[in-house]
């Protein structure tokens, strides 16, 4: 089994009304069901964290820009580490991620252990 980092990306929502409490709860349940399903297969390594929408990017020459975006307009909303036999399996697991239903994406990357 290898470990894979799942990076959740989403366009930063602008001008959209915030979700209602019921919508938030429903979204939360969907995420929990997805993560719970991975954990139930004993394939969850680290639930990871969510990231705040604001941030800064530091570039050479002491240049600091606002916002976490480097070159793409989608920002990283969070990450999770899972265990899977192959990149294909990790990708298959990611296909059920609730972020896809709201236009986001999951980047799947194999983790190379440090010696």
């Amino acid at each position, binding site marked *: 089994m290898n470990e894979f980092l799942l990076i959740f990306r989403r366009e930063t929502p602008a001008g959209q009304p915030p979700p209602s409490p019921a919508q938030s709860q429903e979204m939360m349940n969907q995420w*929990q069901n997805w*993560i*719970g399903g991975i954990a*139930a*297969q*004993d394939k969850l390594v680290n*639930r990871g964290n969510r990231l705040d929408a604001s941030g800064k990017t530091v570039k050479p020459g002491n240049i600091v820009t606002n916002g976490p975006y480097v070159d793409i307009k989608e920002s990283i909303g969070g990450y999770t580490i899972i265990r899977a036999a192959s990149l294909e399996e990790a990708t298959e697991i990611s296909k059920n991620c609730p972020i896809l239903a709201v236009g986001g994406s999951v980047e799947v990357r194999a983790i190379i252990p440090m010696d």
Partner: protein
Amino acid sequence: METNELLPQLFRSEYRKIVAVLGKHFGFDQLEIAEDIASDTFLVAAETWGIKGLPENPVAWLYKVASNKALDLVRRDTVFANKIAPSIRSGGITSEQPFIDLSDQHIKDSQLQMMFAVCHPTLAPEAQIGLALRILCGFGIDEIADAFLSNRETINKRLFRAREKLREENISIELPPSAEIGLRLRSVLTTIYLLFNEGYYSSSQDMLLRRDLCLEAMRLNLILIDNENTDLPEVDALFALMCFHSSRFDARTDEKGELIRYDEQDSSLWNAELILRGQYYLNRASRERELSQYHIEAAIAYWHTIKSDTPEKWQNILQLYNRLLQIVYSPVAALNRTFALAKANGKQEAIKEAEKLQLTDNHFYHCLLGYLYTGLDTAKAINHLQQALALAKTDTERGRIRKDLDNLVI
């Protein structure tokens, strides 16, 4: 009360107190001596009370005899004398004063300290539970062997090795420093939890013994609650969990001692007082933000004390299992989560998730799939129940699976 009724009761309640106090006094170096003195004391009681009748205060009588025996031994044995004599001199022991302090408070303190020593992380969990049953609960070797579905020889060996290990590692019988209590408490709680589960879920047919194991686990947990240093939220949460589970003791077995499934139990037999107690301790456990495995399991157990099958109930249970699995994985939790998913979101969704679990050598896995396919695909349901039947370990389980199969075939 007659001697032959009272003595076994006193053995259950007092043996462990005497061992804890004497063990604390002599240290792990001489733990067997503490156990020998305690056993001897009861032997003398059986003889003396049989001839002379019960003393006025049997417990005080036992303590006095145990204390005198300890003192005799110390006086007789030069090795002991060299080691302990200074403390006797400085302590100013006189013949009127008991040599060993068997006051309530000292007994409680000794038991608590012994608990931390016996549950030292240097020992494997099995060894911890074995020692806990022997030293903290006063169980006989045969009872421990029964509880573990093992034999005398194996248990004796296990206990012997555990004692050796504690001696080699020079584990002292005392409360860990307060900075370490949280960490060390974890292994104490694990032992209590396993002890309870051993009683609640084991396949031993001896229902009385199983109930005893559960009660002992709760008693040990209460010792932790009683002391302000160890009364932490997870301690309360574990106690709440055990209260909720044990509230179903009377409802979960029939007159033949066979287990009755949760959904077939007569809920009027559920113990309302234990459920209330569980709620009290679960509230108490929630005084800080910290959420342990025991908090979540207690909350799941709480929802099970509500008989009616509402969507709210199963949605809550599902979400709790989701969180539990993120803290700690176990096949049982994975299967229970899938069952809750079926109840909350329907069988179709649950089948997809169940088949990902691939716990193919676990008969509960096939039982679950048998249940999920029932009403949707009878051939598959039968197939899974037959696999479950082949994998099941006890007659009780096989009997139950056959009943489900019969219902499908009709």
